[in-house]
């Protein structure tokens, strides 16, 4: 095990109309190869900004993001992004199969290899038959599965997920959580998962990073010592799950309280 992803001293400030807004003050953490880490924090704490900096979509104001020891200056080939807005992230003018295949065409992979990756990825999210459909013919949950398949087919070292299940209903959400855990266990990929949902963070993660309110720092790193095999019914009913969830909840409340007197202005 080594640190695949290292974030050190990351800062991000936005300049706009003469005002400087500090979104991220100082973030340092690392993610080991094959780890599933959840980032959770109060709403508006810059989680999405952080993930976009990690993914090379936004240039940080200061600090470094290293993937496998190399500095991230733009979106690296070793990372795939799953966005919250699946409906806007999938291209409506392409069929499901073409959506999954497009990034592979940019990677200059051979046609048989592309076909193999596409059908394998669609099968592993349970949508083997949907390749010929258009994304808008599918339900929301199925669309997000397509977006996940697109990310898997890209064969990333690190999968970045930005509140991917915030816009689906509770039952679909539970299914998708189990899908992500299952894929993580089968494929051994590294996942950095951003969520505002405390239960989701504890249920999914091997480790949870609790962020402070904006300007953001890491409030606490918490190891989730739940068994590897988790299921919606028993894991969520386990006393240890409740303890961990309560702890995370308290930390986030504390983060909000700390933010109010000093920096809320």
């Amino acid at each position, binding site marked *: 095990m080594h640190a695949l992803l290292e974030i050190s001293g990351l800062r991000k400030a936005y300049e706009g109309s003469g005002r400087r807004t500090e979104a991220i003050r100082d973030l340092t953490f690392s993610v080991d190869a094959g780890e599933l880490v959840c980032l959770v924090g109060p709403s508006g704490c810059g989680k999405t900004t952080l993930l*976009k900096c990690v*993914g*090379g*979509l936004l240039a940080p104001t200061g600090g470094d993001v290293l993937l496998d020891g190399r500095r991230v200056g*733009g*979106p690296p*080939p070793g*990372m*795939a*992004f799953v*966005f919250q*807005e699946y409906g*806007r*992230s999938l*291209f*409506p*003018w*392409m069929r499901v199969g073409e959506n999954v295949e*497009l*990034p592979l065409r*940019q*990677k200059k992979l051979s046609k048989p290899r592309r076909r193999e990756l596409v059908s394998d990825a669609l099968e592993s999210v349970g949508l083997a038959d949907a390749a010929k*459909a*258009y994304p*808008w*013919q*599918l*339900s929301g949950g199925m669309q997000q599965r397509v977006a996940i398949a*697109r990310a898997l087919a*890209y064969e990333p070292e690190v999968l970045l997920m930005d509140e991917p299940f915030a816009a689906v209903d509770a039952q679909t959400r539970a299914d998708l959580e189990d899908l992500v855990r299952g894929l993580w266990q089968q494929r051994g990929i590294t996942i950095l998962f951003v969520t505002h949902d405390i239960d989701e963070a504890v249920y999914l993660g091997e480790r949870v990073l609790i962020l402070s309110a904006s300007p953001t720092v890491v409030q606490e790193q918490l190891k989730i010592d739940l068994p590897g095999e988790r299921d919606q019914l028993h894991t969520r009913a386990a006393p240890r799950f409740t303890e961990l969830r309560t702890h995370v909840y308290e930390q986030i409340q504390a983060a909000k309280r700390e933010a109010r007197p000093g920096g809320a202005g």
Partner: protein
Amino acid sequence: MSGSRDHSRSRSRTNAALGAAGLAGFLALGEAVPRLGLVSEDYFPPTSRIATALGTELGDHAFWTALGDTLTGWAIGLAIAVGAGIVAGVVVSVVPYLRRATASTIEFLRPIPSVALIPLVVLLYGAELRSVLLLVVYASFWQVLVQVLYGIQDVDPVAEETARSYGLGTWARVRHVLWPTALPYVMTGVRLAAAVALVLAVTAELVIGAPGLGARIAVAQTSQAVPDMYALVVATGLLGLLINVGARTVERRALVWHQSVRGEVAL
């Protein structure tokens, strides 16, 4: 789902029947009004005589030559306007600051009616095809350009970020994100431009005397061949109708995925 499709099919059949009835009524009115002496038959011949004149025109070789001339001016002018409109629209949108630098100039040039340029083109080229082309291109170029500008503005930031995160370069993003997003707008622009181009082609021929259906209308008028004149006007109308139907068909084929075409389908 098949039930609603049957329903919409039967509704479109009713619409077609109503449309045909309306047209038949209009034609009957055109027949009756001059026959009853409400207007002079010399200036307003009944439908049947216009139809006979149209039949004679269709059998005349010169009519088809004139139609060919009009379509040539229309097609070449439209092609230039569409090509130039798309290229200019993409360049203006993609190059930083160019959009804001050109906005006021575009807003100034766009409302100038193409027909106001007729004296200029006559001075430049006389009664040649080039005169027709200049007027057609000027009128239809703005239709395309403005739609392309709107279309490119409509690119979804999430789609753009998705493309960037998967390593799509500038050219790949233009091809796979920007172009498909702008395509519905481009199609609308082309459809509007096709109609305007026909109007300007016929106007130019009529006023300048460049060969084509417009010039033939002017000749029919000066030689008192009133039913022929009406028949040619009807022919230009039918041409406009065909062009619009054609443009809509292309639009529907190219945009199966778009909300405006796909309706609300769900599996």
